């Protein structure tokens, strides 16, 4: 009997079909992995199965009975629990309070002995026997917080646990602890759905794996019957082809030299020499330190130390002003929080870094600014008619283009750093952004890109640096390496 299943499920957002006719069945006593690249539809499928979305077509069944899961509360009553990547623990509360937070069955005086004992039992089950119930959450590492959240689900009598990228930011020891907890749960008859990018872990702890690609289910196989290569083929099937521009790279001398970059606690001893007119990609998953390195170069880290030289001149770290005057430009991975001014207009966003050149005696030359904005909009492919619309009306892809357009035509080309440049960007805009990146290269910029999207890395890079947990594990030139090698590097196969 299947505990939870979907059959023929389709989900659309606007004109895009994010899931197409997906069917999947989960049994008790099973750890089931769901794999797929960014945008494959994994999180949408999970949200349908946990009550956050309803499918446009198809049926969801619980215990073999068709059930429409109304909302997350209903899912909770049915025994379905989601441990999302963004944990839902309140930092100001203790472990005990967080475990019972939001649980309907808690009486008014909520710290009764019986509840303490139940919480203790749940913590023991996930391997946190040494954790005090009254410890504040704010003092725990992310790995332990994850386990606390799983313990919370246990106290809600969950039968099916969805874990979304549970190990992205964990140390090896913590990952083992999570695995042990999952195996214990499985032995007790629970079902675990493990959503991950990390193929090594799929084979380490999961019984079967389903692969999604472009919204469709490619297949479901027991892990004993396939191997890594097989799995990767299922995940990455499509041709790289038309997405990425072709080019001739013209390296023109070292533009950016990094020595002994330390950014505690993540990055240790990073070194790099990047040349003008080339794209260097730092490949790594979340927690590998790739993003941290570029943020530190942009001056946004308060604790980075090391020696950095840009275009021959030494650059101070820990200061955004120093990075700017050294011609280091940065495009953030956090578009909404740090990349784009959502409440300002498109034109104002595009000219955000050009104000000085348009100012005389403190006064802006507004007509000239509008011209510049129009030119930049044309250069990045944003409709000029939208120059006066607020930026939050644009799609994610167009907003990202604003972040890029800001740096076009700045006086002297220097280094252009970008973190996850196509995160949350639809396919059409991605191709345009890649063309923009290459355009910067041709102008003489030294482009350094941090990305967890291996296909993107391979499609764009002249030079690839692989990062794993803050250390450089591989350095390759274009053509020297293939997807399998990069994937292996950043997921560290040495767990075996």
């Amino acid at each position: 009997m299947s505990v939870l299943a979907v059959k023929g499920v389709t989900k659309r957002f606007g004109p895009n079909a994010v899931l197409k006719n997906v069917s999947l069945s989960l049994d008790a006593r099973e750890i089931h992995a769901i794999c797929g690249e960014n945008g494959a539809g994994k999180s949408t499928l999970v949200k349908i199965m946990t009550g956050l979305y309803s499918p446009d077509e198809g049926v969801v069944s619980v215990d073999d009975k068709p059930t429409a899961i109304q909302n997350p509360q209903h899912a909770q009553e049915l025994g379905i629990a989601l441990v999302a990547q963004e944990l839902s623990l309140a930092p100001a509360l203790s472990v005990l309070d967080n475990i019972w937070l939001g649980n309907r069955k808690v009486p008014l005086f909520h710290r009764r002995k019986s509840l303490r004992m139940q919480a203790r039992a749940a913590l023991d089950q996930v391997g946190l026997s040494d954790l005090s119930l009254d410890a504040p959450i704010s003092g725990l590492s992310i790995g332990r917080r994850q386990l606390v959240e799983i313990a919370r689900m246990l106290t809600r009598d969950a039968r099916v646990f969805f874990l979304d990228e549970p190990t992205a930011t964990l140390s090896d020891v913590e990952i083992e602890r999570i695995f042990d907890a999952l195996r214990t749960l499985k032995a007790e008859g629970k079902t675990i759905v493990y959503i991950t990018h990390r193929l090594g872990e799929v084979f380490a702890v999961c019984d079967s794996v389903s692969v999604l690609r472009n919204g469709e289910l490619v297949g479901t196989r027991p892990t004993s019957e396939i191997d890594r290569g097989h799995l990767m083929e299922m995940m990455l099937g499509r041709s790289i082809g038309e997405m990425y521009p072709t080019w001739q790279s013209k390296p023109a001398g070292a533009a950016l030299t990094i020595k002994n970059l330390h950014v505690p606690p993540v990055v240790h001893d990073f070194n790099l020499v990047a040349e003008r007119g080339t794209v260097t990609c730092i490949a790594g998953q979340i927690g590998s330190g790739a993003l941290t390195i570029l943020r530190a170069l942009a001056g946004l880290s308060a604790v980075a130390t090391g020696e950095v030289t840009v275009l021959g001149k030494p650059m101070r770290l820990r200061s955004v002003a120093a990075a700017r005057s050294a011609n280091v430009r940065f495009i953030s991975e956090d578009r909404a929080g740090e990349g784009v001014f959502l409440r300002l207009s498109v034109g104002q966003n595009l000219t955000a870094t050009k104000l000085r050149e348009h100012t005389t005696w403190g006064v802006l030359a507004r007509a000239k600014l509008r011209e510049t904005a129009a030119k930049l909009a044309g250069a990045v492919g944003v409709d000029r008619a939208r120059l006066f619309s607020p930026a939050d009306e644009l799609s994610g892809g167009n907003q990202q283009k604003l972040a890029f357009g800001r740096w076009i035509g700045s006086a002297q080309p220097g280094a252009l750093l970008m973190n996850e440049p196509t995160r949350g960007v639809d396919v059409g805009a991605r191709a345009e952004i890649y063309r923009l990146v290459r355009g910067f290269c041709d102008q003489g910029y030294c482009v350094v890109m941090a990305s967890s999207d291996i296909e993107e890395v391979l499609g764009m890079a002249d030079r690839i640096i692989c990062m794993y947990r803050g250390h450089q594990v591989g350095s390759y030139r274009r053509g020297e390496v293939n997807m399998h090698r990069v994937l292996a590097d950043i997921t560290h196969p040495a767990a075996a």
Partner: protein
Amino acid sequence: MTEIALGSRLRGSGLRARHLVLGIRIVAAATIAGFALTTQGFLSTLSINALLTAISFVGCVAVGMTFITLTGNIMSLALGATVSASALTFLATLSFGIVPALLFALLFGVVITGFQGFLVGYFQANPILVSIAALSLLLGAAAFATGGHRIYPAGDGLAIFKGRIAGIPVQALCFFATVIAAQFILSWTRIGRQMAMVGSSSRAATAAGIETTWTITTAYMIAGACAAISGVLLAARYGSGDMELGAGYDYTAIAAVLVGGTAIAGGSGSALRTLVGVTVIAIIEVVLLLRGFSEQLQYLITGIIVLAVIMLHVVGERR
């Protein structure tokens, strides 16, 4: 309904929603104008002058408050006390002449408020907390300096403030000049643009290389200057001053800012909008007065209308 689905549906009808809100605003403005114009005695010189005078004092403070709100720092509870203290400074230094006294008062406002801005900008200290602290310090320092007595002008020459130029009271002219200067700064200068950017997202501003500390400090300094101007005008009008002069201005000022349409979250705002806000509130008050509503009802109705207009603005921005 899921958030994404809702968002895309709203976005599809976005244009229509925006036009709808604009329509509501026009109707609201027309209603207020209608009430005003059909009120007996509204268009008389007396009431217009009363209106202008009422606007001028609070209006300057409201314009200053706009800068603080624009940069994402919500409001300051110390501007009212700054008004009073600047008035006292002005009166006390009149013996040096009008212009030096004016400069002293301006300097006072700029420094006191600018320092608060520095704390908020450099340390990201909570702006409301800092303003409450400054309020206490100002009250204490003023009580110390004045010994609790009213301050009378130490010199002469205040008559100029009591007159009119081209039939408009001097206070009103000063106020309009302040509005124009402030709007110029906001729309036409680099620092004004930077203030909007910092208010929209201070992290994005930092990442784009803007000196956020200096931007926020400047915004506060301008707010201090506006408060000082209001203080000088009040001192000239009443011929003497104490710390009660500007009491309560903070609330009216922020109300005017919000009624005018500046977003409380920062990132968008203009002095002209605040002018509209101040005018609307003043018109409502004068209309209610002329129509014979008791002072109490005026206060109440003004409060309700302010609440309604604020809600209207934000609902409109929900799109």
